[in-house]
């Protein structure tokens, strides 16, 4: 499968440092040989039903940043032709319309769309200390692991959704696609409500304390999220050192609304060694003591939980979820900047994923690349993950259509 020429053509480049200029030559090969066209078509066919696949919008970003909207295809053959003709550097998926999107364009009506979630590590910049902006590393990936586990459980247990696809976004985040009929046909207010249900961190750059849980008993979904966070909290404390410098400590102190408690904590923590784990333990003991002694501690009943959530809970881009026809990068699209494949992964396996083991187009198409074998194996695994979700979606769709059929017979 490998192609030695890819390397020879650009011998001057450094190992692990790839050239975007190679993409126009590599992408057609990738789309033909590696992109799981068949499964992709089946996924979108099911996800568009009862509308035909051709009513689904696809959009391409071409080499020179030209953006093509309102594309569509009706079967795998047309998809292959389209990919070869245009050679998109990026592939986005849009909504299902009442007509072929190229015909309807602005007047077409959106009928359905997967319920989608977009989590990006740049939204964690105010809490992560290892990287900023476009950078990611194994340490900050833990935030994604937590986000994936919390959202996946909520979607399954609370909302009863089953066809949930998790995709690496290609650089610094993850996407989630829910294809259940109920989710696909959810209207805008419905999407808004699901997004708000999942959203615990509120407030922008101008607010220090962004989580307010009140004084009543916690909602089941919040308790479940906290139990997930607890599994990773010590690890995060050690890796991120949330409270180790005076700046970071100050940020945390600003989240304590009670002045007396805040000054007690400040005094104690400033006089301690830097270790965030130790400082956190100390904070907890002061806080618990304080609550026991102070009569009315309702306002700070969940302070420790609020701080944990502010540092660890998923930070959704709610606009993506609320929007009915927001375009989102397709699974198995190539990220033009990193060359990485947007692989499908199992939520249970998120914690074992390593960023440099995620296949990239360069090592997949170059059999002399050091990572070639590993990336090929991981690519195959990703396609298999995709298949599993699509097979179960197809089953669910068949059952739904049968039930629909029965209902109309009864009538």
């Amino acid at each position, binding site marked *: 499968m490998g192609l030695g020429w890819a390397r020879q053509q650009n011998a001057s480049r450094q190992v692990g440092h790839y050239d975007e200029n190679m993409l126009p030559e590599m992408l057609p090969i990738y789309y033909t040989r590696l992109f799981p066209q068949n499964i992709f078509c089946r996924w979108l066919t099911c996800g568009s039903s009862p509308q035909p696949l051709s009513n689904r919008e696809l959009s391409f970003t071409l080499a020179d940043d030209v953006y093509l909207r309102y594309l569509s295809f009706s079967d795998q053959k047309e998809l292959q032709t389209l990919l070869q003709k245009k050679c998109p550097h990026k592939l986005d998926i849009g909504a299902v319309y009442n007509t072929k999107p190229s015909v309807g364009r602005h007047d077409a009506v959106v009928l359905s769309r997967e319920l989608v979630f977009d989590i990006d590590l740049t939204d964690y*910049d*105010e809490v992560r200390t290892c990287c900023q902006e476009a950078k990611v590393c194994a340490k900050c990936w833990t935030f994604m692991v937590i986000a994936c586990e919390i959202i996946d459980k909520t979607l399954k247990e*609370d909302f009863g959704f089953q066809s949930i696809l998790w995709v690496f976004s290609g650089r610094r985040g993850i996407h989630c696609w829910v294809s259940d009929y109920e989710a696909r046909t959810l209207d805008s207010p419905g999407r808004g409500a*699901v997004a708000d249900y999942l959203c615990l*961190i*509120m*407030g922008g750059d*101008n607010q220090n304390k962004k989580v307010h849980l009140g004084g009543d008993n916690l909602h089941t*979904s919040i308790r479940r999220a906290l139990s997930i966070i607890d599994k990773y909290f010590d690890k995060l404390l050690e890796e991120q050192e949330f409270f180790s410098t005076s700046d970071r400590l100050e940020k945390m102190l600003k989240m304590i609304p009670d002045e007396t408690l805040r000054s007690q904590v400040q005094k104690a923590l400033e006089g301690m060694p830097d270790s965030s784990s130790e400082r956190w333990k100390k904070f907890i003991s002061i806080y618990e003591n304080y609550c026991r002694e102070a009569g009315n501690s309702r306002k700070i009943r969940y302070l420790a939980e609020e701080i944990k959530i502010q540092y660890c809970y998923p930070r959704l881009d709610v606009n993506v979820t609320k929007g009915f026809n927001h375009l989102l990068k397709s699974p198995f699209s190539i990220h033009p900047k990193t060359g990485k494949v947007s692989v499908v992964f199992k939520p249970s396996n998120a914690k074992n994923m390593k960023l440099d083991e995620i296949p990239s187009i360069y090592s997949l198409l170059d059999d002399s690349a050091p990572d070639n074998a590993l990336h090929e194996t991981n690519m195959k695994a990703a396609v298999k993950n995709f298949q599993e979700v699509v097979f179960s979606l197809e089953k669910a769709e068949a059952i739904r259509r049968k039930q629909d059929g029965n209902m109309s017979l009864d009538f």
Partner: protein
Amino acid sequence: MSFFYLNPVKGDLPAHLLEVILFNRLGYLNTVFSSEPPVYNEYVVEGSIYDNVGHFILCIISILSENPEFSEYILRTELKLFKRRLTSLSAYEMRSFSKKLLRSIKKHESVPAFIEALQVLCQHLMLKEVAQHMCATHRYDCVKHNIRVHFKQCLHLVAKRQVEITNGVAVIPCGKWYQYLISLFRQNLVNRINKTDLAPLKSDSRIMELLYKIRKQYTFSKQMSNKLLSKDVDSASLHFPPCMLNLHQNLRRRHRLSHTQRFHYSLFLKDIGMPIEESIEFWRSEYRLHPNGHHSCCHNWEKDEKKYIYGIRHMYGLEGCKRNYPSVNCQVIQSIDNSNSEGGCPFKSFDYDKMVPLLKNCSQPVLSQINELKSKGLYTNACMLFMQNGFTKENCDNCSFNFTPVKFYNMSISKSKDAKL
């Protein structure tokens, strides 16, 4: 007939009586709106024929008026009236209210899903024991009785995590039932206002005459703003509401705004009178400069000129779906500040020390009043109080609902003109 108004009463009424009913209802709703204690009015006796006719004729007028502000006002006051009536029911009245509703639901062959949910709720409320429980002192966290509905039928409760959900089914405890019933009433009313096609009535002279009279009496002033030029934005910003002033200052400082905030700010400028060519000039002058500070935006005007101009033309309704986007209201600004962004309503989402610099010329007593409103969650009221600072308190009833940054600006401008005279 129940005051849920599921069905309109049938029959004919003389035109002059329609008018009397309509204006009596409007007058009554005004007193409801300003929270005056209820006074007996023979045309608004709950459950009566006049009450039913008045409600439906008002809906018709509100649809035909094609004035979103008027419709919003009707929606709010009708909702408040419903709430007032609901919470003053005795157990006996509650049972008969539910039974009436169930009867009128049964008249329909098929009903929308939210009416099915209403049916489930009524089947509980009509039970003697339940009705007595509800009408005795009842806490909002009471969980003695429950109903189960699909989560799609109680989105307001889902959004605020006020219900537990398992497998798509939400359990609504009795403590939340009133709140839920009110939201169902609202949904029914919104459906009616948005989905009823009244085109045939437009040729009905009696209705059109009523509409004319209403329009004369309730003019929701649309202030004509002066043309705002790109070079004058700094001086105009003296009259900006704090949320827009914040965006303006951020833009001047960093020369970039995040996507949503750019959208909000451009629409605001458009609606206070900035013509499209000035808007392009305004954004060009900032986006030509290098971004300042940490900002993930790597765009600049030269590189993305076409895209930016397209975006601005789009907002002015000249591209794409050719829709003229209105600027956003306070409710929207307050509800979407949950991403990492520089924007949002300063009264809601800013720490005290970040908020105060945006409140120019605000005296200490006013500041402490603002803080009090802020802590009660009355962010829009805090904003209005700030605007009135230093001026005689005028009756602001007409604008307290659906408040927007544009209204703030227009009122602030007209106030400063009055002050100069």
